[in-house]
């Protein structure tokens, strides 16, 4: 504990209340839920990238002992699908169907479902389904998908271009840049073409669902690992054509989500429908191959950037084109991540002149949608590689080039030509701190002498912004994002003075329950043991507008603070009556309600006042009994977390292997609620970021359209020996927009990881002129680059 008081909990590494069951093997995940009478679903998935389905013979499967039903697209009449939430103007909509209707468009797309007594039997029955496929030409590359004569994935849309969206470089004040002028004026124009690899969250727990339809009460209970239960409830009711009041979503422990569980999925509809048909609980647990094929993928982009610079290193302008490989269907957020890439690409730099075209492209691949970072890491990869290329071209140190172009601490709020308003930060200070921590000058010196000994050491800097705390609902409306941006919190004080906090946030490993309990205990100035947090039940918890992503604690925490402000005000009013004092002379402090200046003599505990609030014998006139409040907080602005990472690596030029020397993080997420958990989030997000930078990739075979990496032996997630120890330092620039000064930080570690690594590798190989412009930088890919460069 960093404080001597036991009533202030913000800034304290409070132990996680989540841990007690989890370390005993008594967590309760979806697979552990099995109501009486449960039957099991298995799903037949397309083995082809693109194939017409001319018919499905279900007779043999239906005849198998132990099989209850088979669902095909023909059974979905009258059943809807899930709309895209982010519907940018001009985006051609193609919702993800629950079962492929007449045509399968990617390997892994659901074609039929079987329900049987056990999962083993259901899989036996899948083998008996006879599908008449007519194989069609496929396309799994964005540029090929845009070429004349390419197979069209969704005929209804005409071609494979889903949207062409332009960022014209006009900031929120309406000030436009002059991109052509910037390029005319430039001393140097630097170009880059980047392939950001396709990878995803790949949570250790696969997705799963248990649906329980009660035909007498006409209610559906769905046990789900969704990060955004409120939205799932709204959309599922609409898709099934039943009242939303009939649907309850229960969330147990989640074994990792990483954004992938923000989306709605076909299986949500399939298990619900099967349970409604059979009147029995229906359970589906995704297997690992399904998880790799059918849980959304993320990231994949082909970016082309041009940067205009003057010879002194001033970046005059940036223009680019981003092709986003969306896969076969628009999933829950449309091309949202690629839009964020366009909005964030100017990063920490004062680049007045900006232009970016974002093109969403359909291919015969798994939908590309929500994944930790959501377009931000892709943006950082492009701009931070461009900064290093520019530095090399101009002969300026890459740290110095960044320093010369950074937005200064006194220039906030900063109106970016990408459209965002940055709230606060101190970018040069974060860079300086990172360079100091890594001993930049010393490492640069050593680099020279090591190279003479045949050791190829590289230093990679990457700075980042992370626009988090999405966002004021009115702005989401302007962006055609069809949810709100708020979080609600209900706090109830029981007659003994203890607090129960109801949140719509869904904990998925970050420690949200502990963090929110800290905020509540801190604001009420009571022992954290006296705060209970209730989550994971849409019948009890407030509607969450945006849905809980890792970066939402900042918004949810403010909702808690505001609800408690109302409770304290009411406690003061009731307490003043009991103390026979004017409410203006009474204050709430240290968990007590006291007459100011007479705290020793005229004072009540929160429990005293709560008891009176429930008895309601002596309440002030007009005061409602009990002591509770609900506050729905809609953020005033986005918050921008920021920082700089520095990676130091050695590259083995004979094998392409990368060895870690050091990795330094300086992050600024405003006021920190729990330092230990923040460290955990940074390290974990870094493992996601570096995984995609070095190892993880969904590889598609051009020839067959097959997903080649559909086991964990082919899709490589980082293991213990692949990652370094991270050295973490913080700056604290509280957000001026949020009560408490919090910023979202759960995703930030993903943002600079890939460019920091790529910049370090390119720096190590600068003598060969190797450019590292594609992720992941696998040993074989890197070896080929070294080989081509003659190394």
């Amino acid at each position, binding site marked *: 504990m960093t404080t001597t008081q036991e009533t202030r909990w913000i800034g304290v590494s409070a*132990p*996680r209340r*989540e*841990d*007690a*069951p*989890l*370390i*005993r*093997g*008594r*967590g*309760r*995940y979806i*697979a*552990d839920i099995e109501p009486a009478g449960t039957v099991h679903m298995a799903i037949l998935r397309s083995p082809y990238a693109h194939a017409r389905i001319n018919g499905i013979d279900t007779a043999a499967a239906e005849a198998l*002992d*132990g099989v209850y039903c088979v669902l095909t697209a023909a059974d979905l009449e009258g059943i809807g699908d899930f709309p895209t939430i982010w519907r940018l103007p001009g985006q051609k909509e193609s919702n993800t169907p629950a079962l492929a209707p007449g045509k399968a468009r990617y390997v892994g797309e659901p074609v039929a479902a079987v329900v049987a007594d056990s999962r*083993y039997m259901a899989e036996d029955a899948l083998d008996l389904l006879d599908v008449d496929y007519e194989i069609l030409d496929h396309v799994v590359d964005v540029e090929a998908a845009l070429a004349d004569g390419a197979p069209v994935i969704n005929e209804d849309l005409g071609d494979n271009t889903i949207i062409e969206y332009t960022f014209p470089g006009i900031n929120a004040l309406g000030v436009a840049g002059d991109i052509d002028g910037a390029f005319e004026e430039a001393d140097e124009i630097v170009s880059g073409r980047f392939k950001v690899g396709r990878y995803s*969250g*790949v*949570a*250790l*727990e*696969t997705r799963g669902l248990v649906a329980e339809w009660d035909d007498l009460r006409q209610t559906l209970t769905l046990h789900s690992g969704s990060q955004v239960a409120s939205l799932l409830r709204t959309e599922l009711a609409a898709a099934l054509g039943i009242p939303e009041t009939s649907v309850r979503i229960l969330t147990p*422990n*989640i*074994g*990792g*989500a*990483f954004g992938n569980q923000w989306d709605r999925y076909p299986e949500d509809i399939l298990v619900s429908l099967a349970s409604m048909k059979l009147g029995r609980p229906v359970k589906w*647990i995704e*297997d*690992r191959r399904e998880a790799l094929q059918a849980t959304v993928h993320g990231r994949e982009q082909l970016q082309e950037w041009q940067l205009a610079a003057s010879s002194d290193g001033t970046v005059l302008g940036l223009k680019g084109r981003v092709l986003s490989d969306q896969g076969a269907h628009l999933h829950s957020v449309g091309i949202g991540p690629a839009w964020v890439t366009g909005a964030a690409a100017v990063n920490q730099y004062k680049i007045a002149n900006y232009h970016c075209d974002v093109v969403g492209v359909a291919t015969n691949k798994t939908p590309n949608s929500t994944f930790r970072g959501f377009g931000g890491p892709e943006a950082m990869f492009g701009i931070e590689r461009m900064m290093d290329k520019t530095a090399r071209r101009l002969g300026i140190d890459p740290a110095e080039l960044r320093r010369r172009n950074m937005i200064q601490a006194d220039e906030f709020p900063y109106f970016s030509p990408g459209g965002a308003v940055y709230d606060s930060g101190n970018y040069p200070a974060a860079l300086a701190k990172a360079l100091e921590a890594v001993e930049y000058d010393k490492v640069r010196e050593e680099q020279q002498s090591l190279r003479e000994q045949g050791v190829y050491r590289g230093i990679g800097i990457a700075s980042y912004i992370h626009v988090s705390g999405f966002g004021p609902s009115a702005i989401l409306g302007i962006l055609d994002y069809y949810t709100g941006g708020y979080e609600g919190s209900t706090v109830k004080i029981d007659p003994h003075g203890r607090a129960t906090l109801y949140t719509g946030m869904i904990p*998925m*490993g*970050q*420690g949200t329950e502990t963090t929110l309990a800290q905020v509540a205990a801190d604001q009420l100035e009571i022992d954290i043991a006296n705060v209970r947090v209730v989550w994971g039940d849409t019948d009890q918890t407030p509607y969450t507008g945006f849905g809980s992503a890792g970066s939402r604690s900042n918004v949810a925490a403010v909702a808690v603070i505001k609800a408690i402000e109302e409770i304290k005000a009411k406690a003061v009013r009731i307490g003043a009556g009991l103390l026979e004092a004017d409410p203006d002379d009474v204050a709430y402090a240290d968990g007590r309600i006291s007459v100011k200046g007479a705290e020793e003599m005229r004072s009540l505990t929160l429990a005293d006042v709560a008891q009176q609030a429930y008895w309601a014998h002596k309440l002030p006139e007009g005061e409602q009994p009990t002591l509770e409040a609900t506050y729905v907080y809609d953020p005033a602005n986005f918050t921008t977390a920021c920082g700089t990472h520095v990676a130091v690596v050695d590259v083995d030029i004979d094998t392409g292997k990368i060895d870690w020397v050091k990795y330094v993080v300086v992050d600024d997420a405003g006021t920190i609620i729990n330092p*230990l*958990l923040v*460290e*955990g989030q940074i*390290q*974990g997000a*870094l*493992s*996601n970021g570096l995984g995609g930078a070095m190892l993880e990739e969904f590889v598609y075979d051009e020839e067959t359209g097959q997903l080649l990496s559909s*086991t*964990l*032996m082919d899709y490589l*997630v*980082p*293991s*213990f*020996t692949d*990652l370094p*120890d*991270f050295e973490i330092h913080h700056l604290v620039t509280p957000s001026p927009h949020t009560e408490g000064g919090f910023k979202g930080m759960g995703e930030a570690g993903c943002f600079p990881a890939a460019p920091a690594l790529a910049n370090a590798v390119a720096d190590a190989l600068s003598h060969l002129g190797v450019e590292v412009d594609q992720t992941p930088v696998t040993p074989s890919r890197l070896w080929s680059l070294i080989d081509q460069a003659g190394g």
Partner: protein
Amino acid sequence: MAETMSVVLNVNGAGRSVSVEPRKTLADAIREDLGLTGTHLGCEHGVCGACTVLMDGEVVRSCLMLAVQAGGAEITTIEGIGAGDDLHPMQRAFSEYHGLQCGFCTPGMILAGIDVVSRNPDPSPQEIREEMGGNICRCTGYQKIVESVQAAAAIMSTEGGSA
């Protein structure tokens, strides 16, 4: 209904006869027939280590074994580690050093950690990283798991404590 076989599974010190299809994995039998759901399934092809149990003192992946192969062996699952509030040092260390986030890999990690320390009472961070390479965590980036195992090893060397 496929034919079943009887097998006696000795788990956490208690023997129980179960009747299972020969194709049923040990992991599924532990979870479904014995109701011990602390053993998790992350990949069912032997890569992730979430289903790790100790069998006759060795770590095994219960997803890669059939239940009928486990007759006669002494099996320890996470439920057999620590008793009530008397937690194993490895469990305490994981909580204290934030060696877990979502908790899904944690039972396997704790058993693997106990196994490492039983063979090497004072492992270096590098040894822990190498020895535990068969268990995947997607949340933590591993650093705090390494710290947890090291801390537990230190406690175990003074307090004792084995599976």
